């Protein structure tokens, strides 16, 4: 995070000049908002202007050290801020105007909420006198976003604005991270109030004259792990003969990859990785069993069934992992390491838990645990497949061919943003992510259209790294309008469309479960993705074999701007293995 500068920004400096005679620094609400963003070290925001947020845009216009990225649609702004947050570990910020502007953010906010991504959404509303009167572009966005934010607040009093912004950032980035929304009425953005800069380091203790400050010392931040609970976990590990570790999204959020690797080596246990855990443990590590759950590998899912201790690190046991809670890990004791007390025993029974940040807890465990040895158990687990095999040949690419070719030609630390569906599962199954923040995917909410926005945010936040956007021909048509953002800002995002001319995942369920009644899943229609890319001022290429894909990737890597590769797949290609929803974790329908 950029160091906080106590010197006010240009807007504040100018205002201070004029206010010096009066002996007080007075700013408009819009200027206070911008100064509060600077307090946080925010230098990038994604958004879309409109009537009620005009004053904020006017203040941003005069603040060159905050770069604003104009998107095509507010959903893209929310996803971009989310992708920025996930890939950098910083808080992402998006802006939208009242009414449709802010409702367009909601899918992006829900996506961030389900995946615990730190996001601050700033919306403006009609003037406080017009609130509640069904005014033009008025909507109760705090009411709408209450179930999908950690916290939200309407600001109708300019004197409260600065502290609300500070609280919003504090809540978004602390403890279990997540999105926060601030809704500022238009009259507040133009009203004037004294503004006193407050360095970020002081936001915790001295900030608030109100009772939230009492909470700041406790529940907002990560709980301090109990050493007794840590010892209890160590006892369980020492007593286990067949331990399994599950790497969840909490490992990624807390950047606990080194501690988890040391832990896995010390316990000498296989590690299964959830969708959200991708990047928390190297997919090609000898201890990795690959993905777990509905499309988990045989090794992962059978290990769940056979283990006698399951240690879940930052994993909430969603229905896509614990498909049937009653029989999940039925021979095992289940131990949870989680930052959030509400996750303990929420979805599956829990025999022991340690509350705290994953990195902190794992470090405490690693410092105390002696080396374990489970050679026979590992041999058992790794006798099952960790990857899916495909029949090759014919005039289509296989998912594995695409992923292997990409992995071979792109840098090892490439950030991969996915959409939702088959291509998402294939990407997670076959790319071996090694770094937290390397995989950006909507695991909890499953929002099609997430990928391109997230890729834009990641590229903005990581200008030196390569960003790959993996999508399907279903997902891509949802938010491909953001190609215009890719083009305008010269972002060299590479998009690979896994083009099977169907809504693949739903098509697959219809094949397996609905007796091949393909209701509304055939995409026998445009657009022509290459010509679409060209219409946006980018280039692209359609490919149907490895050699063509290699050529296209070479061109994409060297062209210096965004590029779209339309990769043709067999419409009947499936994501395998597959365990149907609600079934026992080894009831594979397809392997």
């Amino acid at each position, binding site marked *: 995070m950029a160091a906080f500068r106590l010197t006010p920004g240009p807007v504040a400096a100018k205002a201070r000049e004029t206010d010096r005679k009066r002996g007080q620094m007075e700013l408009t609400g819009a200027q206070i908002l911008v100064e509060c963003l600077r307090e946080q070290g925010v230098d990038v925001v994604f958004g879309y202007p409109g009537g009620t947020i005009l004053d904020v845009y006017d203040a941003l216009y005069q603040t060159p050290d905050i770069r604003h990225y104009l998107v095509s649609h507010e959903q893209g702004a929310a996803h971009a801020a989310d992708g920025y947050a996930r890939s950098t570990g910083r808080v992402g910020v998006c802006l939208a105007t009242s009414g449709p502007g802010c409702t367009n953010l909601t899918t992006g906010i829900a996506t961030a909420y389900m995946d615990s991504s730190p996001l601050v959404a700033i919306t403006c509303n009609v003037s406080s006198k017009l609130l509640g009167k069904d005014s033009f572009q008025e909507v109760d966005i705090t009411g709408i976003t209450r179930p999908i934010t950690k916290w*939200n607040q309407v600001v109708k009093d300019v004197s409260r604005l600065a502290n609300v912004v500070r609280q919003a950032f504090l809540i978004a980035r602390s403890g279990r991270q997540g999105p926060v929304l601030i809704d500022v009425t238009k009259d507040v953005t133009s009203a004037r109030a004294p503004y006193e800069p407050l360095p970020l380091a002081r936001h915790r203790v001295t900030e608030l004259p109100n009772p939230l400050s009492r909470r700041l010392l406790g*529940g907002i931040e990560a709980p301090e792990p109990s050493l007794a609970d840590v010892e209890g976990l160590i006892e369980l590990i020492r007593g286990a003969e067949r331990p399994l570790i599950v790497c969840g999204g909490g490992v990624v959020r807390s950047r606990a990859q080194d501690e988890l690797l040391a832990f896995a080596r010390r316990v000498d246990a296989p590690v299964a990785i959830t969708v959200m855990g991708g990047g928390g443990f190297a997919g090609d590590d000898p201890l990795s069993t690959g993905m777990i759950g509905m499309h988990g590998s045989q090794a992962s899912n059978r290990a769940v069934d056979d283990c006698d201790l399951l240690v879940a690190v930052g994993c909430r046991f969603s229905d896509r992992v614990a498909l049937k809670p009653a029989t999940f890990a039925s021979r095992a004791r289940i131990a949870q390491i989680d930052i959030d007390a509400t996750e303990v025993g929420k979805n599956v029974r829990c025999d022991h838990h340690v509350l705290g940040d994953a990195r902190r807890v794992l470090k405490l465990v690693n410092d105390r645990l002696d080396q374990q040895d489970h050679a026979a158990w590992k041999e058992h687990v790794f006798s099952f497949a960790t990857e899916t095999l495909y029949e090759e040949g014919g005039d289509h690419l296989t998912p594995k061919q695409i992923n292997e070719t990409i992995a071979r030609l792109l840098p090892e630390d490439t950030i991969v943003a996915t959409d939702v569906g088959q291509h998402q599962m294939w990407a997670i199954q076959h790319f071996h992510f090694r770094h937290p923040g390397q995989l950006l995917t909507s695991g909890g909410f499953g929002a099609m259209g997430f990928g391109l926005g997230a890729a834009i945010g990641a590229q903005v936040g990581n200008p030196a790294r390569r960003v790959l956007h993996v999508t399907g021909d279903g997902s891509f048509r949802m938010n491909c309008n953001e190609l215009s953002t890719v083009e305008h800002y010269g972002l060299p995002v590479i998009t690979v469309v896994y083009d099977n001319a169907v809504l693949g995942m739903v098509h697959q369920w219809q094949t397996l479960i609905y007796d091949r009644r393909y209701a509304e899943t055939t995409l026998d229609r445009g657009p022509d993705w290459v010509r679409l890319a060209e219409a946006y001022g980018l280039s692209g290429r359609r490919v149907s074999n490895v050699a063509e894909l290699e050529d296209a990737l070479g061109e994409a890597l060297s062209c210096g701007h965004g590029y779209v590769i339309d990769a043709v797949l067999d419409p009947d290609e499936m994501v395998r293995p597959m365990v149907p929803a609600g079934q026992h974790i080894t009831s594979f329908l397809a392997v």
Partner: protein
Amino acid sequence: MRSYSIAIMVRNEYGVLNRVTSMFRRRQFNITGLTVSETETEELSRITVQFVGEKRAKNQLVAQLAKLPDVISFKEFDPDDSISCELLLIKVSNRDETRSQMLDAANAFHAKVVDYTRDAIVFRIAGQTRRIDNFIDLMRDFTILEVCRTGVVSLERGGTVMRNVSNI
């Protein structure tokens, strides 16, 4: 299944009650009683929640409450260490043939007549939930026109002050 009484101190601000109740709805907690009021300080409101369910569900409810940033502290009441009370207003039909029986019953329960007209009598009674339930049950023998009860409020016995409890 058993009944739990939980008090929460929250910031007395716009939208906080809604945030608490929408959490109950979203997480599928079925609340049997809810009272909200201002407190000894204007910054804080006190919410008392009645919940019937399994212990595991109650633990989940408490954890979800503690997670809300606006919740300052919470307390799960033990019936032995706390005082609980509820207020009832009940309007019954005033008929010659039943009046004396009704007034006798009310007298036995120390219910107060707070309105008396040719058509109806309104009784007021405060006490524990079971006592209120019993009184309503007795009144069913007559003609109940309307019932309004406040839900339970609770305080811990002794000198403990909830706003000073730091359990989050």
